[in-house]
Every structure is written in structure tokens, then in C-alpha cells.
């Protein structure tokens, strides 16, 4: 993008400021993680933090006294540093603390301070006692993701190709509902789907209760407190995360490509299948990740729209952490959740992978 930089790189210009910048950034991040996880304590921690400050000071010194060339080389690292260090300390370090706690045990049921084992007991409990919650969590999230595609794709398609000058307005309409609180929207659905609410009444009036019961959407004439209600809530709440990326990928498609396919006697359906669909796969890919990942860890929908028999893994983590105060067990479940999702993302990326995640 920046030709001046490229030119000097091609000349094999001085790379030293660049290496120092990157080294100082990664080094400072690593030191902060070490201090944050209390791997370094006491005097070592003080030395580490001083080094981090020194590396920031060095950037300032180069910025003030350096040559324009070295200044330009060092600039990106200076710009990245504060935000990246924040993430190192409050995103990366916590994951290590989580891992350590998940390998610890509480000496007694009422103990607050966990003791580091290392022990795999928590993981064994997570896989045995909480297996149904894990299975439900991933199953519900997967079904909800498929539903968001079936609802969101056609909507994104119509907005992108038939929206005309109303595109931005329609896109705004998609986003607006999500400016109200997630929690209140879910409570709204709880009330809308409630027994003797207008939805159940309407189904009752047209005498289709048997059909919904048969499809397992209703249970004994109830819509609320069923697995379907939980999945429905997840679908609703994560729908825009599917629509927006699909829209972005559809909007990029040159409509003349579709016309060209039709000029070559392709039917509308095959033009869609051979031209539009393949080009929109990156959007579906991004949308799937943005929907599936938060849905798998969600517990609000299961809490408000479900029963104790429809709890997902998120409910169990929340309960163990904040109610039962069994932080080590909750940590192991969090870690397993993250691990499974990471594996899923890696496998999924291998099949549909694109660089353009964001």
C-alpha cells in the first residue's frame, strides 16, 4: 500500500528500527502477561514493569529525536502498543490464569482460595457431569446458526440486489432492533410466546397445535419453556450477525457477472448457484462464526426461554462461577468451551477459509 516503504524495503534498507519496534512490542506484552499471571512477582515484577515503561519511553525518544526514516519505521509499533498491551494484560493473561485455576482445586467446599494441583479432576467432572449441557449448547447453537442462514440469506440477497436506492435504509432497519437491550428483547419474546399469549392463541384458533406439537416446536400446546423456544431466541438474537456479513459479500458482486451468465443462457437458478452463491461464501463463513461462537456460549436465552432441562453450557459456567462459587470447575468448563470452538474454527476455516474475517 505504501510505496515509499516498499521501495526502501526492496533496497534492503535499515531494518533495525523495525526489529527493535516489534521486539519491544512483543517483549513488553510477554512481560505484562507474566506479571499479570503472577509468574513474576515481587522484585521481578517491578523490574518487568520498569522494562515495559522503558520500552514505551524508547519509542517516545525515537519519535522525538530519530530520523524521519527511523521514525516511520517505528511509528506503527508505537501506535499499536497501548491497545495491544491492554489486550495482553486483560485478554491474554486472563486466559492463562483461567487455565491455571482450571487445574486447581478448592480444599474444601467453602474455601475461597483454590490450590494449584495440577489436577485434571475439574476436566473429568466437566466432561461427565456436564456432558448434556455441552451437547445441548453446541446442538442449539448449530441449529440456530442454520436457521439464521435460512432467514438471513434471502433477506440479505433481496436488500443487496433489489434494494436499489433503499439499500441503506433497509440495512438500517435490520440493525435498529438491535439497539435495544439484548436482555429486554429476550424478555419480550418470553412474554410474546407465553401461554395464552397471542401467538399460542393464534395457533389454537387455526387449530394447528397438533402440527406444532408434532414438529416438536410446541410441547403440550406450550411454546415457551421448550428447546424450540431457546433455539428460536438464539436465532433471533444473532440474526444481524449473519445478515450483515452476507450482505457485505453480496454487495461486492458485480451484477454484470449475473447478466453475463444469463446472456450465456444460464437460468436464474443456475446463475445464482454458479455465480452468486460461490461469491457470497465468505459472508456466510464470517456470519457463521459470528453467530455460532456467541450462541454456543450464551446463557440468557436458555435462562429466560427454557427450563432446567434445556440449560446450555453457558448456564452451567455462570452457575458454577457466580452461584456455587466453584471457580476452578467453571474455569475448566470455560476452557473446554473455548478449546472446542477453536478446533471448530480451525477445521471450518480449512474448508471455507478466507483471510477476510473482519
Amino acid at each position, binding site marked *: *500500500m*505504501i510505496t515509499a*516503504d516498499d521501495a526502501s524495503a526492496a533496497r534492503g534498507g535499515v531494518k533495525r528500527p*523495525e526489529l527493535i*519496534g*516489534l521486539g519491544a512490542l512483543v517483549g513488553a506484552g510477554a512481560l505484562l502477561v507474566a506479571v499479570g*499471571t*503472577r509468574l513474576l512477582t515481587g522484585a521481578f515484577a517491578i523490574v518487568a514493569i520498569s522494562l515495559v515503561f522503558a520500552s514505551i519511553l524508547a519509542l517516545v525518544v525515537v519519535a522525538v529525536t530519530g530520523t*524521519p526514516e527511523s521514525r516511520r519505521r517505528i511509528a*506503527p*509499533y508505537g*501506535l*499499536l502498543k*497501548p*491497545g*495491544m498491551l*491492554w*489486550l495482553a494484560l*486483560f*485478554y491474554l493473561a*486472563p*486466559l492463562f490464569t*483461567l487455565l491455571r*485455576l482450571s487445574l486447581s482445586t478448592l480444599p474444601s467446599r467453602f474455601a475461597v482460595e483454590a490450590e494449584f494441583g495440577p489436577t485434571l479432576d475439574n476436566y473429568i467432572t466437566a466432561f461427565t457431569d456436564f456432558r448434556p449441557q455441552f451437547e445441548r449448547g453446541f446442538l442449539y447453537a448449530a441449529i440456530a446458526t442454520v436457521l439464521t442462514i435460512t*432467514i438471513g440469506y*434471502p*433477506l440479505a*440477497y*433481496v*436488500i443487496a440486489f433489489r434494494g436499489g436506492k433503499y439499500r*441503506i435504509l*433497509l440495512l*438500517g432497519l435490520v440493525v*435498529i*432492533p438491535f*439497539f*435495544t*437491550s*439484548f*436482555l429486554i*428483547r429476550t424478555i*419480550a*419474546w*418470553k*412474554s410474546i410466546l407465553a401461554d395464552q399469549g397471542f401467538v399460542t392463541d393464534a395457533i389454537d384458533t387455526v387449530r394447528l397445535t397438533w402440527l406444532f406439537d408434532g414438529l416438536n416446536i410446541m410441547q403440550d400446546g406450550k411454546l415457551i419453556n421448550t428447546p424450540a423456544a431457546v433455539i428460536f431466541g438464539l436465532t433471533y438474537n444473532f440474526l*444481524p450477525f449473519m445478515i450483515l456479513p452476507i450482505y457485505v459479500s453480496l454487495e461486492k458482486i458485480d451484477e454484470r457477472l449475473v447478466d453475463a451468465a*444469463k446472456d450465456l443462457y444460464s437460468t*436464474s437458478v443456475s446463475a445464482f448457484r454458479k455465480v452468486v452463491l460461490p461469491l457470497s461464501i465468505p459472508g456466510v463463513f464470517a456470519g457463521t462464526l459470528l453467530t455460532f*461462537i*456467541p450462541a454456543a*456460549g450464551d446463557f440468557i436465552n436458555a435462562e429466560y426461554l427454557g427450563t432446567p432441562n434445556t440449560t446450555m453450557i*453457558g448456564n452451567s*459456567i455462570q452457575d458454577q*462461577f457466580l452461584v456455587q462459587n466453584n*471457580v476452578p470447575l467453571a*474455569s475448566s468448563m*470455560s476452557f473446554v468451551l*473455548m478449546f472446542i*470452538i477453536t478446533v471448530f474454527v480451525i477445521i471450518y476455516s480449512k474448508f471455507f477459509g478466507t483471510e477476510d474475517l*473482519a
Partner: protein
Amino acid sequence: MSVPSSTGGRIARIALNAYAGFALLYLFVPIIWIVVFSFNQPKGPYNTVWQRFTLENWADPFGDEALTNAFVESLKIAAISTVIATVLGSMIAIALARYRFRGSAGLNFFLVLPLTTPEIVLGSSLATLFLDWDITRGFGTVVIAHVMFQVSFVALTVRARVRGFDWTLEQAAQDLGASPLRTFWKVTFPLILPGILAAALLSFALSLDDFIITLFNAGSLVTFPLYINGAFARQFPPEVNVLASVILIVSVALMLGGTLWGARGRRKSAT
């Protein structure tokens, strides 16, 4: 443009449009419920069954003191965390979009990670860190948590917006003798400002609405979503609907304003 479509094609077209229309309507069902029930006069503590129309709730939206306090806390947290995250995130975005440098691919990947980590993992892991440090969780820890998830969000949003930015403008300004600092404030900053503001607005909304991460790091602090969740066991007052509607109206107004402003900006730069 394309070949005239058959009757079947026309029907398919109408069916698809209708399907999309229903999908859009579906998105609005709970919103309509929230707004309609803000005009309800409930019998008992739960505002979930329609009784009769009233304007009373709107006359005194801050009638529920605990709810109002929680709302104010949420606004304060969102304001502080958004300012911090917007500065940090925009700096990252400029670094990634403006420069080519060693390690940018790895740092880019690291930046995406928090967004692909479930909120419950972000929330619980940060809470274990604060437990480990023996820090009492409260206002400060919630701000830290919100900045953490907002930074990546702002950085990626701003980066997407400044991707098409013509960086040779900077070169031009400097060739004309402007200092790098002056170039940034006079040329670069005004041009990327709309992108930054849009990202700030969205991340403000994310903070205001955040429930899961906040729940783990709030300690005894009560934010707007936490209050609603905690109170739901006992009550669901119509003031909740009123405040939710207010948030909705303000966001829509800001969004419309932003769109119009953006359009004006584009026209101006086009001429």
C-alpha cells in the same frame, strides 16, 4: 438488462420478496412489543399482560430510582470505556491500514481473537484474573472489561473504513511543507473522523448493552442490564420499556444523523 422473466419467474421473485419482508417483520416483533408495552398500565409487578393504555410511564421515565441509578452507571461506564477504546482502537487501525511492517499479520490475527472468543470465556477469565489479584470487582473492573472487547471492535471497524483512504494525500501535504503532526491533524484526521465516530457509536451501544462480561466483573455494581436481570425475579416495571424505547429512539436518531452527515461529507469530498 436481463431476459424478461416468465410467469414462474415472476412468482418466484414475488415469493422471495415476501419472504424477505416477513424476515424483516420478524426482526421487529419484540421491538414493537417493547414500545407498545411502554404505554401499558400493568396490574401487579410484571408488565407482560396488556391491561390498558396510559401515558403515565412516559411522563415519569425516571420514576424507578434503582433503575435510574443503574441506567446512569451504564451510561458512565459506556462513556469512559468508549473514549479509551476509541483512542486505542483507532491507533491500532491507523497502524494496520497505513503502514506495512513486520509482524502485522500476527498482530492482526491477535486482534481478531477476542471477537472469536465467547463472551462467557472473556468474562469468566477476566474475573479469575481479578480474583487472583485480590482486586474487588466493581466500576473500574467493568470499564477495563468493556475496553478489552471494544478495542478489537473499534480497531477492525475503523480499519475497514480507512482501507480506501488515499494516503498519498499525506505525502502531498508534507511535500508542501507541513510537519507530520500538522499533516495528521489537518489532513488525515478530519477524513477518517466519520469512520472513528461510527465505530465509537457502535461500541458505546455494545457497552451499554453488555450483560455477560459485565455480570462476571461487576461485583456489587449494578448496571442497566444487570438491574433488569436481577429485578426480573420480582418485577418487570414499564419504566424498563420506556428507557429501552428511549435508547432505541436516540440510537435511530444518531444513526440517521450519521448517515446524513456521511452523505454530506461524501458529496463535499466529491466536488
